[in-house]
């Protein structure tokens, strides 16, 4: 499966939860598949999906899911020790690991070669790290959201992209409606 197929499959699972979504095609795909005020679309700032979602999870009690990418986690590897050492049960980090910088044309990342993000997350001190194949993600994600323990999911999948338009929503509108959803 490619990222857009995964997002289609998990859309019903995440639609009522607070979601912070990675820059580029991941956000564009989620926006097209199931736009919700509970989605925070990143329009820039590669690498910070995990950090934004984690700060949000620490600041309030609702479950938060950060949808991240392997390339973005690699660019902000420092996020994993911070998450591990300040664990909060309402946080789930879903890393869609397609082994490539998908949004920029599927250039290979090191996560698709010798580097295991699962092993890195464990070495950083994350207690619940689950590596899962794309087709098995749904139930794993559901139980991670339901559980009281913080979970890092590394979802291995194929690289590949579909054609779709950029998000034209104003960032302040994205942020405002998201904050209203957080408060609701």
């Amino acid at each position, binding site marked *: 499966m490619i990222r857009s197929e995964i997002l289609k499959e998990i859309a019903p699972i995440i639609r009522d939860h607070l979601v*912070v979504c990675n820059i580029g095609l991941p956000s564009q795909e989620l926006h097209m598949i199931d736009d919700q005020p509970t989605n*925070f679309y*990143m*329009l*820039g*700032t590669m*690498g*910070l999906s*995990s*950090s*934004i*979602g*984690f*700060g*949000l*999870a*620490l*600041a*309030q009690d609702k479950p938060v899911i950060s949808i991240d990418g392997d390339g973005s986690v690699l660019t*902000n590897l*420092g*996020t994993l*020790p*911070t998450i591990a050492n*300040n664990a909060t049960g309402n946080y789930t980090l879903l890393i869609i690991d397609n082994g490539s910088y998908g949004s920029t044309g599927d250039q290979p990342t090191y996560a698709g070669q010798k580097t295991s993000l699962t092993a890195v997350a464990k070495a950083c001190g994350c207690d619940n790290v689950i590596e899962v194949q794309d087709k098995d993600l749904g139930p794993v994600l559901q139980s991670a959201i339901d559980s009281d323990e913080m979970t890092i999911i590394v979802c291995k999948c194929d690289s590949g992209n579909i054609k779709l338009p950029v998000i034209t929503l104003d*960032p*302040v509108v*994205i*942020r405002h409606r*998201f*904050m209203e959803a*957080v*408060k609701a």
Partner: protein
Amino acid sequence: MNIDKKIADDLVANDVSFVTTVPCKQLAGVIEEIDVRDDIFHIPSNKEDEGMGLCAGAFMGGKRPAIIMQNTAIGVTINTLATLTQFYRMPLPMLISYRGELREPVACQVEMAVHTKALLAQLNIPTFHFHWQKDVEELDNILKYTFMSNKPVAILTDANFWGGYGDQ
């Protein structure tokens, strides 16, 4: 006056309850003070752009955030300041140790000091410079200004403000 306590008091008085830090020798005292305050959640970050991501999330979660970092971190965070904090219009007080100014013993620090105000000006970031201890009296107003305007705001604090850099 104990500057570290005064800064922590002003943060608390302005409802700032989520603070991320990357240390600098000059900031050791204030970081220690923040760490022991019950009203402030202190989360050290590994890089300042990561810290700004945490602050963005905390803000959207209803908390008032702040970051404490060294001026060298301006070089690390320009993309984040522009594409996250400013683009989405979020407030962020940045208490910054301004290394490489008068009374600085480490030559390398001067190399980023000479760019610091220019970079902040280029980013249209409101910038305040604390040089004398009494300048800290402005902090309360600066915090109010930051959350009124929904902008990142820089407070540069030099070695003279902190009472000299100490022996080295």
